[in-house]
C-alpha cells in the first residue's frame, strides 16, 4: 500500500474518525471545532494526492488498491482514481471546511448529530468517486442518501419532513432500478468472459457487446437512478423541495457534489456501459435536458422564495451538463465535467448567501426582504458576484463549461463538424439543440437579475419581526462568513480564468470515453451492415 493510497484512504477515514469522535466522545460545543479541524486537515492529503497524481496519464486509475471483500459477490474494496474522479474528490474535500464554517451559527441544537453526519457525508462523497468497483460505487452512492436525509429531516426548515422523504424515496426508487441495470451488465459480462467481476474497467470494456435492446434497457435502468439524481426534467421535483428545506450546508453539498453524482454516473456508467443505446437516445436525453433548462429557468423567474429560485436554477444549469454528455464528443464531455466541477461553486455560493441572510432575517421571501445592499454591502457584493457567476459571465466559472456544452451540441451533428474529430461520426444533436439550450443564457440572466434586483437593490425592506430570534446578529457578513466565501470566490475565478488546467487534466479520460463510444457505435454499425449484407445475399440466393 503506497503512501498515496494511504492518503486516499485518509480522505475517507479522517472524516469517519471525526464523526465517531464527535458522536461518542466530544461534547456538543466541540463538535464544530472537531469538524472544522478535521475538514481542514483532510485537505492536506488531498493536496498531496493532487500533487502526486500523474496528470499525463489521467485516463488510468491511479493510487489503485484493492482488497477482496466478498469474492462470491465479486465485491472488492477497490479504490483508485482517474483524473475526473480526482478532481471531483478535490472539490468534495474542499467544500468540507466551507460548509462547516458556514454552519457555525446556523446549527445550534443537535450539533453532535449534525457535524457527525456531515463528516460521514464527506467520507461517502469521496468514496463514490474513489470506487473502482461497481458495487462499491453503488454502496457509496446510496449511502450518501442517509446523511443528507438526516441533515434535511432534522436541520431543515418547516416542510423538512416531506422534503427529506421525497428526497430519499425518489432517489432511492431510481437507484434500485440502477442496481438492477448494473447487475444485468455484470451478468452479461460474466456470460461473455466467464468471470463475475464488478471491476468498472473490465465491465466498461465488455459491456458494449450487448445488443441494442439490452443496452436500451440497461440505459433506462441506469438513467432511472442517475436522471433523478441530476435531476433531469421531469424527474426534478424533489430537488427544489429538498434544496429549499435543507440547511445551508446541505444545500451547498447537494448542489456542489450530490447532484454531480448523477452526471458522474451518466458519464462513468450510463455512457460506457450502454454506448450504443446512449448514442441512439442521446437526442431524446438532450431534449429533456433542454426542456429542463428552459422550463426550470422560467419557473425560477416567478419564484418568491429565493432559495427555491436558486434550487430551480440548479435544474436549469444541470441541463447544460447533461446536454454536453448527450453530445457524445470531446468538447461536450469536457464541458460537462467542467460544469460538474464548477457549478457547485457558484450555486453553493448563492446558497451560502441565502443562508447568511436567513440567519439574520429568518425569511427567504423576496417580498419580505429587499434592498439589502444598503444594509449589507459586503453581502450584496458577494451576492452579485455569485449571481453573475451563475449567469455564466465569462471569466467566471460557469462560462467555459457552458460554452463547451453548447459548442458540443453544434459539433455533434456530423453535418456541422469537421470530420476526423472523435465524436464527429454521426449525428446525435445539432444546431437547434444549441439554439434552444442557448436561450437558457437569457433566461438565467432574467431570473438571477430579477432575484438580485429584488433582494439586493431597491429600497430597503426588512421583515417586521426579525431580530426576535436568538442572539443579536451583526449587520454585515462576519469574518468567519467571509472566510467561508473566499475559497468559493477564488474557485469561481480560477475556473473562469484557468479552465485549461482542468481541461488538460481531463483530456485523456474524456478522449478515451469518446473513443469507446465511437468504437462501439462503429462496430455495431459494421455488424448491422454485415447483417444487412447477409440478408441481401440470402435474398439474392433463394
Amino acid at each position, binding site marked *: 500500500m503506497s503512501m498515496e493510497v494511504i492518503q486516499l484512504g485518509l480522505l475517507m477515514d479522517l472524516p469517519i474518525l471525526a464523526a465517531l469522535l464527535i458522536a461518542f466522545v466530544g461534547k456538543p460545543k466541540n463538535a464544530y471545532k472537531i469538524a472544522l479541524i478535521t475538514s481542514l486537515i483532510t485537505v492536506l492529503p488531498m493536496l498531496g494526492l493532487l500533487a502526486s497524481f500523474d496528470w499525463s496519464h489521467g485516463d488510468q486509475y491511479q493510487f489503485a488498491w484493492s482488497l477482496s471483500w466478498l469474492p462470491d*459477490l465479486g465485491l472488492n474494496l477497490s479504490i483508485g482514481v482517474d483524473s475526473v474522479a480526482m478532481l471531483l474528490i478535490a472539490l468534495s474535500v474542499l467544500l468540507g471546511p466551507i460548509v462547516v464554517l458556514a454552519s457555525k451559527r446556523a446549527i445550534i441544537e443537535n450539533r453532535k448529530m449534525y457535524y457527525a453526519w456531515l463528516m460521514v457525508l464527506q467520507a461517502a462523497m469521496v468514496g463514490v468517486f474513489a470506487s473502482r468497483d461497481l458495487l462499491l460505487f453503488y454502496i457509496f452512492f446510496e449511502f450518501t442518501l442517509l446523511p443528507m436525509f438526516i441533515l434535511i*429531516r432534522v436541520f431543515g426548515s418547516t416542510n423538512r419532513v416531506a422534503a427529506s*422523504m421525497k428526497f430519499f424515496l425518489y432517489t432511492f*426508487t431510481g437507484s*434500485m*432500478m440502477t442496481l*438492477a441495470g448494473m*447487475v444485468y451488465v455484470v*451478468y452479461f459480462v460474466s456470460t461473455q468472459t466467464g468471470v463475475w467481476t464488478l471491476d468498472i474497467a473490465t465491465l466498461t470494456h465488455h459491456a458494449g457487446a450487448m445488443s441494442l435492446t439490452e443496452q436500451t434497457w440497461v440505459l433506462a435502468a441506469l438513467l432511472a437512478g442517475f436522471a433523478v439524481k441530476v435531476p433531469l426534467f421531469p424527474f426534478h421535483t424533489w430537488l427544489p423541495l429538498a434544496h429549499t428545506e435543507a440547511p445551508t450546508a446541505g444545500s451547498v453539498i447537494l448542489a456542489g457534489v450530490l447532484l454531480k453524482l448523477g452526471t458522474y454516473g451518466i458519464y462513468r456508467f450510463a455512457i460506457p456501459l450502454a454506448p450504443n443505446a446512449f448514442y441512439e437516445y442521446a437526442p431524446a436525453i438532450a431534449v429533456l435536458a433542454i426542456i429542463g433548462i428552459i422550463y426550470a429557468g422560467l419557473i425560477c423567474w416567478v419564484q418568491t422564495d429565493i432559495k427555491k429560485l436558486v434550487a430551480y436554477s440548479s435544474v436549469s444549469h444541470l441541463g447544460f451538463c447533461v446536454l454536453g454528455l448527450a453530445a457524445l464528443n470531446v468538447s461536450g464531455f469536457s464541458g460537462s465535467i467542467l460544469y460538474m466541477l464548477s457549478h457547485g461553486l457558484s450555486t453553493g455560493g448563492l446558497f451560502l448567501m441565502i443562508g447568511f441572510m436567513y440567519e439574520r432575517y429568518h425569511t427567504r421571501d423576496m417580498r419580505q426582504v429587499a434592498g439589502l445592499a444598503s444594509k449589507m454591502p459586503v453581502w450584496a457584493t458577494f451576492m452579485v458576484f455569485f449571481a453573475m457567476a451563475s449567469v455564466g459571465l465569462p471569466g467566471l466559472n460557469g462560462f467555459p463549461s457552458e460554452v463547451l456544452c453548447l459548442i458540443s451540441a453544434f459539433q455533434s451533428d456530423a453535418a456541422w463538424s469537421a470530420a476526423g474529430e472523435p465524436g464527429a461520426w454521426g449525428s446525435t444533436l445539432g444546431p437547434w439543440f444549441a439554439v434552444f439550450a442557448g436561450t437558457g443564457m437569457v433566461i438565467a440572466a432574467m431570473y438571477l437579475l430579477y432575484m438580485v434586483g429584488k433582494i439586493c437593490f431597491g429600497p430597503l425592506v426588512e421583515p417586521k419581526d426579525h431580530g426576535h430570534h436568538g442572539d443579536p446578529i451583526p449587520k454585515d457578513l462576519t469574518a468567519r462568513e467571509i472566510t467561508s466565501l473566499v475559497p468559493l470566490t477564488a474557485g469561481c475565478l480560477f475556473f473562469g480564468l484557468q479552465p485549461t488546467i482542468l481541461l488538460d487534466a481531463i483530456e485523456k479520460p474524456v478522449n478515451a470515453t469518446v473513443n469507446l463510444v465511437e468504437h462501439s457505435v462503429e462496430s455495431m454499425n459494421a455488424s448491422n451492415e454485415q447483417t444487412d449484407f447477409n440478408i441481401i445475399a440470402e435474398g439474392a440466393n433463394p
Partner: protein
Amino acid sequence: MSEKLALIVPEILLFITTCIVMITGQWPQRAVRQFTPWICGIGLIAAAGAATATPDAVGTLFPALIPYTKVIIAMVGLLLLLLLSGTVDRDIETDVDRGLKFNPINSNRGEFYAFFLFSLTGLMLTVSADDLIWMFLALELTSLPTYIMVTISTKEHKSREAGVKYFFLGALGAATFLYGFAMLYGATGTTNLAGIAQHFATNGISSIGMMGMLVALLGICFKIAAFPMHFYTPDVYQGAASPVSAMLAFVPKTAGFIAMILLLATVGWHAELGLPGEINALLWIIAAFTMTLGNALALIQRSVKRMLAYSSIAHSGYMMVGLIAGPGQSGDPFWRNGIAAVLFYLLCYGVMTTGVFAVLSAIEKRNGQEADDIDDIRGLCKSYPALGWVLVICTLSMLGFPPLLGFIGKFGLFSSGVSSGNIGLVVVLGINSAIAAWYYLGLIAAAYLDSPGDSVSTVTASPFVSRKIAGVISAGCVVLLLVFAQPLIEGARNAAALSPATPNAADHAPLAPDPRHDEDH
C-alpha cells in the same frame, strides 16, 4: 439407518434438551428454573456443533444443505432464546419474590422453552427431510408449538385472538399442503423426494403431479406468510408477545422456504427456462403480490409490530425471487444461485428482524403493556441510545440500505434474479424495496431523529437484559457480518448446491423454445 441418524444428530440433541428443559422449567428451586434457558442455549450450541459435523446426505437433492442451514438455525435460535427470556411466568416470579410458593401447575416456563426447542427441532428436521411424510411431520412439528407459544405469550386477549387465528388458519394451510402431498404421492407412487424427482425426470410431470405441486406450494405459503396465505400474519405478530413474533418471523418462514426448496428441487430448474411453466407462473404471481401487498399495507400501519409483520410478508416475496431463480447449474457461483441467496437471506432476515423485535421487547409501556405504537419508539436513540441504534441499524438493513447485511442479501437475490432472466420480477423487487423504504424510514426517523418530547406515551426499559443483548448482538451481526460474510456466503453456496446426480424433470420436459433466448444460440 445409521446414516440417517447421523444426519439428525442435532435434532436428537435438541430433543434431549427439550426433555430436560420441560422438567427443569417447573423445578421448585428458582436457580434451576432460571437455569432453563441456559440449558436451551447449551443444547442449541451442541446442536450447532453437531450440525457442523453432519456428513453429506447422500442421495438427497441438496446433499450439503444440512450443516449450513442447521448452524444458522441454531445461531438465530440462540438469538431468539435471548429474546424469549421472561416472556412467560413473569407474574409468577414476581409472586415468588413476594414470598408466595412456586406452583409448577401455574408455571408455563418449562413448556414454553420446550415448545421453542420443539419448533426448532421441527425446523431442523425440515432441513433433513428427504420424504414427504417426514416433511409433513417436520412442518407440523415446527408449527404446532408456535400456536401454543403465541397463545400463552401474554396474558392479554390479543394473544388468544392471535392464537386462535393462527391455529385455525394454520390447520387450513396444513390441510392444503397435505392434500398437495397426497396428490404428489399419487402421481409418483413414492413419498421419497429423490424418488419423486426421479419419477418426474423419467416420466415427465403428470397433471396430477403438477396439481399436487401447486397445491402443496400454496399450502406452504402459509408457513412463509406469502400471498394468498398471509392474512393471519399481521394479527398474529401483533397479538403475540414481541419475542414470539420474532420467532414467528424466522422459524416457520425458514421451515416453509426449506420445504419449498426441497419440493421445487423435485421438478428442478431448467437451465434456461427455470421452473416448469405453471410453477414458475404461480411463484411469480405469488412473489409479486406478496411483496407489493406486504409493503403497501405496511405503509399505513401505526403499530410497529403490524408493520414488521407486513414487512415479513414482503421479505418472503423478495426471497421467492431466489426460489424462482433456482440454484443454476451445478458449480454455479453464489450470484447465480437463487437458493443460496435465499438461504443467506434467511440468515440476514433472521438477524435483522430479531434485532428489531428485540428492541420492541426490551422496552415496555409504563403500564406494563408492550411497546407497539410508533409513538412508543419515538426518540428512542435519546432515551435508550443502545436500543435506538439497534433499531436504526437493523431497520436500515431491512431496508436494504448499503452496505448493511440486508443489502448484501438483497444483492444476492437481485443477481440471481437477473442472471436467471427474471428481470421483470427484479424490477418489482426494486420498486418494492423503494416502497418499503417509506415506512422503514419512518421507523428510523421516529427512533433517531424525532425527540422523545413528541411521544405521547412514555416507555421504559423492560427488566430483561438478555433482550437488550439480543438486540445488540443482532445489530452487531448486521454490521460485523459484512466483514465476515464471505464464509457465510460460501456456506450458503455449498449448501444450495443441487446434487449433480439429481435428475432434472425440467430439463427433460418437452418445452417450446423460448424466443427470448434465441440470440444466445
